[in-house]
């Protein structure tokens, strides 16, 4: 199978007041297209930092990240932005919605940065929101939603540009057990139908248990 993600010897070292802090230590990972994997670890183990390095949000101190053969950190700002917009769907720990936009606009938002994806955006947004149980909230504003509903809107947004890989950081953090199960079912369905690759980081072992493979992180190092 084709490699979706290849990580080679990634280091991320922060210089905090002259003191070196190794957030990532020689991380190596290769993920096939259509994989559904999770990385678990305690808070501060480096999971979120690894996700942001993979997603082109934090530049590693050294090492390489390649997504579908593209060396992420060799791209300029335009290339990196296009990669984030077209190939990657981010789900952050917080809901991260724009408060002045309606739910459907929040979901459609990434499209304004996409070079040629202005088709039936709202139809697509509505379909994703319906799949996540939010068909009656299309015109609501984020302040009118519960924390769990806001989280599902943020999840819907990650799928609007049909990304090749979803990078999810504690994606079900605000959800109750039933919603969590529905979201994971939605992920599985997309994974199967679209061959979308999923990389979840979490400290929730039950959630990790629903993925095909679990990696562990400790003190910045990735363990099998």
């Amino acid at each position: 199978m084709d490699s979706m993600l290849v990580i080679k010897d990634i280091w991320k070292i922060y210089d905090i007041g002259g003191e070196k802090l190794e957030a990532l230590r020689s991380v190596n990972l290769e993920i096939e297209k259509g994989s559904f994997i999770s990385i678990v670890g305690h808070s501060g183990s480096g999971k979120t930092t690894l996700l942001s390095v993979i997603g082109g949000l934090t530049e590693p101190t050294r090492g390489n990240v390649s997504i579908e053969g593209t060396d992420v950190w060799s791209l300029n700002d335009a290339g990196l932005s296009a990669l984030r917009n077209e190939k990657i769907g981010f789900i952050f720990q917080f809901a991260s919605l724009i408060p002045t936009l309606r739910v459907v606009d929040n979901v459609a938002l990434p499209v304004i940065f996409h070079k040629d994806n202005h088709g039936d955006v709202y139809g697509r947004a509505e379909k994703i929101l319906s799949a996540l149980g939010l068909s009656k909230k299309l015109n609501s504003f984020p302040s009118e939603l519960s924390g769990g509903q806001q989280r599902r809107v943020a999840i819907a947004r990650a799928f609007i540009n049909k990304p090749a890989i979803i990078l999810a950081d504690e994606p079900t953090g605000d959800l109750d057990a039933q919603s969590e199960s529905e979201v994971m079912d939605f992920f599985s369905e997309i994974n199967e139908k679209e061959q979308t690759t999923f990389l979840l980081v979490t400290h929730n072992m039950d959630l990790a248990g629903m993925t095909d493979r679990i990696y562990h992180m400790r003190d910045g190092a990735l363990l099998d």
Partner: protein
Amino acid sequence: MKERKTSNKLSLIFLAFQNLMRRTFRTSALLIAIAIVSGAVFSTSTLMWGVNDSLKKGLSKFGADLLVVPKGSMISMKSALLSGEPSVFYMERDILRTIASLKGVKKISPQLFLTSIDGECCVIGNAFIIGFDPTSDFTVLPWIEEKIEGPFQISDAIIGGLNTQNVGDTIVFYGQTLRVYGKLGRTGVGLYDNAIFIDIEHAYSMAEKSYTIPNVAPLKLVRGHISAVLIQLEVGAKLPYISFTISKDPNVKVITAGNIITSVRQNLVALFSSTIVLSIVLIIANALMISAIFSTIINERRRELGLLRAIGARKSSIFRLILYEAALLTSIGGLSGVIVGIIIMRVYQRTIIFNLKALNMPYIWPSVTDIVMLALGAIAVSVLVGVAGTFYPALRGSKMHPYDAIRAGE
């Protein structure tokens, strides 16, 4: 449930507009501050433009390249010309021959200034009467806007555009009944708007007859005296040389149209200097205020800006988003200031014109096209202030590290 709009209305400008609507009090306060600057810039420039333009138009109608007056009467002449203030001064008519003989002089025409006395029998008080020579005139007859059919008669008068009489009416000075033959268009130049022009020969005879009217102070004027000589030069004639040659006569003073415009401009700048300085201070203060507020706004929205970067916004998109927000805010504020400025100037237009005329400044309202241009200029200044003030915060916002921005506040 509300009807969902299916159009793809999402854009950076839409996002910028939504951001402005987020904090209505802050946005309103900024709009008012920008409107004050825009209103000040627009009002000042409109008034200055009006004075300058009316002066240019008036003097272009004046048609004379040079004006020769008796020595010591230059200030009175400027006052007469600009505000229509009745002024009386005389010199010998012989100067006409000397000037006519100069090479480069195309036309010359004498004028005689009289002022009537207020409140006496048979006299319209305090009018500025100017005797002109219809045979040589080139500054009055060509600018008649409406008139009676037939040639100008010796007992006729031509009135300036601000006089209340109509064509065909009669007016009486020192027992002499004059028919209003024509009326000049309004020029903004006091002399042409306020004066009453009569045949110079009639003016001499009126002065002579004034001695026969009981209980009225006579017009102290000697036949053969004139007040001013209007000179039009040949194309290509050297104005400074002719002016210098005439000035060799110690009894006269030469005034050019340029002298008058410069003099009014100096008065204009002096009058508006405080307003100009205040406008500049307001512009700088506004730019700094916008800069400070947008720095705060960007700090408040660090996480959102980081999110936009994460979903595909380039640095330049973030930069444009912030500039659009500033441009929208300042253009709306600028437009509001212009509208308020127009309303205030219209409400106080009589007071404004009265005060300007008291300072020898002619004024006619700029044309609609000029006002639109000035309004666009004032709005453009507001937008430039906004963009300049936001430039650095926007640059800083666009360079924020996406990951750090997303984690802001954690």
